[in-house]
């Protein structure tokens, strides 16, 4: 933990002047090296918030600070260098004609000299385990592979923060696993801050803290154990609870004395085996 990397204070936003706020009065601070999961029903403003953090949209009130620098028109290109973003659709963010071109695209934009670019492309592809596909065209890659390339393109820019805007939403379970594993590895290695917007609760359960958004507001910030105990309340917002929580609930309706705390799958397994040995 090196201190705050992204901080928002009183951020509000709306797309058209006469419409209701898409985001209203949002404040938070994220530490370097944290893994944040942002959950919330569709239309709760998660993606809008992500775009504001990257300077793709400008809030109409409130400020965003990235590494102590206030985000405005002058600093936006600097900020984009430290905040990388991976989007949902793997096809529509693949700019280059081949894997290596796509990874190099961001560096080309920053004017990185060519010899260094070649080295960084190689390195970034190794990090996501895609070096064998260097010359491949996007049409020949699977969705998960394309997202790993997108990740490599961001890694090559050496950012402090990676925002994933439902980056695993369009992938099959295998592709999702590959991408998450790659991110976990990269986060460990570079002390990255990861902000992942997701509907996948098992992915959210891995986070250090969860931000719950609902109707443009940041409803709750808490570690997963605490968030998932909100069971009924989460379901009221149209969200779900993780599998282990569902199992806990199913057990308690069948008359087992289940502990009141959140258990992840490992904890649940241990509790069940303890219970079994007592029977």
């Amino acid at each position: 933990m090196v201190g705050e990397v992204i901080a928002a204070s009183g951020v509000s936003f709306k797309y058209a002047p006469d419409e209701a706020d898409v985001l209203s009065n949002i404040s938070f601070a994220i530490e370097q090296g944290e893994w944040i999961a942002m959950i919330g029903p569709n239309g709760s403003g998660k993606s809008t918030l992500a775009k504001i953090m990257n300077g793709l949209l400008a809030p109409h009130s409130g400020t965003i600070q990235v590494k102590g620098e206030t985000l405005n028109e002058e600093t936006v290109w600097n900020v984009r260098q430290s905040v990388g973003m991976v989007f949902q659709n793997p096809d529509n963010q693949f700019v280059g004609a081949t894997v290596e071109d796509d990874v190099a695209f961001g560096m080309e934009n920053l004017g990185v000299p060519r010899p260094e670019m070649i080295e960084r492309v190689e390195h970034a592809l190794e990090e996501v385990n895609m070096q064998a596909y260097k010359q491949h065209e996007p049409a020949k890659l699977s969705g998960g592979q394309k997202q790993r390339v997108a990740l490599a393109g961001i890694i090559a820019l050496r950012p402090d923060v990676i925002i994933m805007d439902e980056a695993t939403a369009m992938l099959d379970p295998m592709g999702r696993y590959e991408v998450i594993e790659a991110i976990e590895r990269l986060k460990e290695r570079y002390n990255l801050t990861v902000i992942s917007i997701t509907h996948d609760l098992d992915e959210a359960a891995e986070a250090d803290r969860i931000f719950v958004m609902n109707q443009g507001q940041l409803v709750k910030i808490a570690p997963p154990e605490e968030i998932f105990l909100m069971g009924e309340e989460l379901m009221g917002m149209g969200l779900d609870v993780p599998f282990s929580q569902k199992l806990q609930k199913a057990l308690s309706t069948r008359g087992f004395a289940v502990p009141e705390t959140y258990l992840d799958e490992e904890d649940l397994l241990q509790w069940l085996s303890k219970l079994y040995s007592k029977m």
Partner: protein
Amino acid sequence: MFDKLLIGRYIQGNSWIHRLDPRAKLLGTIYFIFLILLANHWLAYLLLTAVVFILIRLSGIDLSFFLKGIRPMIGLILFTVLFQVFFSQGGEVYFSWGILQVTSEGLRNAVFIFIRLVLVIMISTLLTLTTAPLELTDGIEHLLRPLSRFGFPSHEIALMLSIALRYVPTLMDEAQKIMNAQRARGVEFNQGSFIQRIQAIIPILVPLFVSAFNRAEEMATAMEARGYRGGEGRTKYRQLSFHKGDTVLVLGLLVLTVVIFGIRNYI
């Protein structure tokens, strides 16, 4: 439906021709077409045909690919050739019926036009078969670059070209998907009158356009998020370089030019 499309088809290989600099290949092809149009003697055509066949041999690509490239054009070629045969004037008259007449000059021209068209198609097919689309756009960008001094948007055009090429397979997949989806809802694509067939295309075109707009918007956002702000201050990952082979190509073309002009002027 789309596998007949030869435009931009590229066959991977590692022949001498594959390894040539795309700029040299592009300009060389254009220049060669110019030479084909310049030739006006059967000796010159014999020579050019021999050169084309040698180049095809050097590329290591099966001749059948080139014949496939000619096939869709065959109607057009025959039409032009027949026109030449029946409507040319001059020389010995072999046959005459109304305004139609077959003359020695007409036959000569017809044969020349046939060879010209076939050679032009073959040499341009050779270019697209041996050059990856990406290399081609790189080459075009480099060749256009001097024009940017006069305000010509060479970087933007190159970017648009490379994005367009990169999306060809993606959009084809999508068109196929939309087509199947519409078929599943009972739209018939190859039945009915001409008008009905045209109308049947609308349920493909509209969704395809809408999705292309959405893709474009998402892509622009993703590009901006990755720091893209126009051509200025960018470095290039890809670099083209002139090799020994390219010099050989240029020398070969020079020799060929001299010979063709020689035939033109002295024989």
